[in-house]
């Protein structure tokens, strides 16, 4: 397929359709409203469902209802909106329904700003809502990956019967880049007759299906939570994705960075290489499950003296990096979170100061 030039937000909408998702519920919020503006035109062409809900709270439950009925479904929002949806996300994780949430992150906390940021890392990877659950979190570094990951997200949501989040940011949403769409996904989720409320008349078994999260018996609830944990453990075994950049060199410093920030780091690494300074980067593409072993191994390479996590936050992923490095190397942090993305020149200065 030929490359097309698309805005990240629109490309994410198109990717969902090509992944066989014909159902989209959302509430407008900058910087991602273009997804809805794109899909309101595109979904009728595939006999799909578009609905603008009255709030992100309601949209979260529209997603829950539709996912519970066994249909592929997606919503997109940005940070404050994701906070409002987090209640529903907890229920969806507990009730084990596949659904895709896209967070085009903007600056926080509170109303914050509308420019790109990475301040929702904790919310995305550590839960966000109440109770013991995780989202599988994919972090694209540009429009092409946003497309690929959105399509993957549906497969993963169905494999694990749970919510999957794309953690982008305002730049990825607003930027146009050339994209090449992968093969379309098959349309029907495979195993929904076993659990979805898709109507007894539409399935072979006459057993009724129940989508719920209430377990009043402590033994039953503990068993339920162990089931969920087993899924998160399986994700850790099977779904970790990362990119190692300039990792073959004898680097002195290892950068950990993801998403938009990692692109700036990549440019900084290239420029430093021209000056004869070797720096590598470990870029997690899945933020949960986190590439624990890869970070440890990259950090403890003999040439590597120290690690720095560079983020558009006040220091969030760095906590996971510290955990993985296990004290074997010093772990430093640099971050900005006001909407300005640190420049390659700034990163170069920081790295030089470390050496």
């Amino acid at each position, binding site marked *: 397929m030929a490359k097309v*030039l698309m805005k990240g937000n629109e490309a994410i909408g198109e990717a969902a359709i090509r992944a066989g998702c014909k159902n989209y519920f959302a509430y407008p919020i900058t910087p991602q409203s273009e997804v809805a503006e794109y899909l309101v035109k595109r979904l009728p062409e595939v006999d799909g469902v578009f609905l603008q809900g009255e709030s992100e709270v309601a949209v979260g439950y529209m997603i829950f209802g539709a996912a519970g009925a066994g249909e592929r479904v997606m919503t997109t929002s940005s940070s404050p909106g994701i906070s409002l949806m987090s209640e529903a996300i907890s229920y969806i994780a507990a009730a084990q329904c596949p659904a895709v949430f896209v967070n085009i992150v903007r600056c926080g906390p509170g109303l914050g700003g509308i420019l790109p940021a990475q301040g929702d890392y904790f919310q995305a990877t550590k839960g966000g809502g109440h109770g013991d659950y995780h989202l599988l979190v994919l972090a694209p570094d540009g429009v092409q990956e946003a497309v690929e990951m959105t399509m993957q997200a549906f497969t993963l949501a169905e494999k694990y019967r749970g919510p999957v989040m794309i953690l982008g940011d305002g730049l990825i949403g607003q930027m146009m880049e*050339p994209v090449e769409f992968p093969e379309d996904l098959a349309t029907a989720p495979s195993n929904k007759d076993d659990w979805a409320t898709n109507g007894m008349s539409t399935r072979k078994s006459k057993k009724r299906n129940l989508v719920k999260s209430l377990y009043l018996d402590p033994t039953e609830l503990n068993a339920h939570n162990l089931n969920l944990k087993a899924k998160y453990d399986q994700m850790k075994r099977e779904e970790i994705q990362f990119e190692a950049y300039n990792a073959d060199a004898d680097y002195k410093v290892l950068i950990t960075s993801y998403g938009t920030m990692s692109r700036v780091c990549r440019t900084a690494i290239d420029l430093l290489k021209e000056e004869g300074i070797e720096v590598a980067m470990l870029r997690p593409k899945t933020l949960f499950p986190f590439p624990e072993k890869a970070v440890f191994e990259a950090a403890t390479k003999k040439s590597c003296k120290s690690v720095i996590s560079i983020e558009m936050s006040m220091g969030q992923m760095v906590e996971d990096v510290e955990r993985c490095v296990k004290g074997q190397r010093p772990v430093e942090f640099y971050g900005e979170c006001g909407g300005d993305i640190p420049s390659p020149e700034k990163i170069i200065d920081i790295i030089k100061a470390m050496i």
Partner: protein
Amino acid sequence: MQTEIKFAGFGGQGILLSAKLLAYAAMKQGSFVAWVPSYGPEMRGGTAYCTVVISDKLIGSPIIKNPTHLVAMNRPSLEKFSDTVKPGGIVFINSSLIPVRSNRKDIIELVVPINEIAAAAGSVRAANIVALAAFNAKAKLVDPDLLKDCIKEEFSAKAKIIPLNMKAFDEGVNFADNN
């Protein structure tokens, strides 16, 4: 080799579209491209800007502090960004609206009265196409015929304005070639 072009002006001057057309043509030419808008309240009538990055390899940081070239469509844009342009770059000045110049000796100024040229070609509404054509003629970033094809494609739903924009394009190129 990487070239970065900042387009800046009032909302409504066609900044985002001109930038997109350039990025689209560069993509068709086989380059890696990124189109990075400013977004937010400034979209509502204030100064808007947009950066196009064209590269022969995968684009790392799309955030550009010092662009190769600047296309300034209004005075605040010129005053705000002319000092950020890398030495040797082109600073395009829309002289229909901007009475001042950049005061830099290490860049190439391209001063074009785009409104007057567009009006002569048929309508001032094609001023952004005059600017894009003249700038590209000077900077030689993409094949002009390819860029014209991209403009035709963009306006394919409004076919009757294509001849106007083609004329405006040619006049823009002529002006740049002769000045």
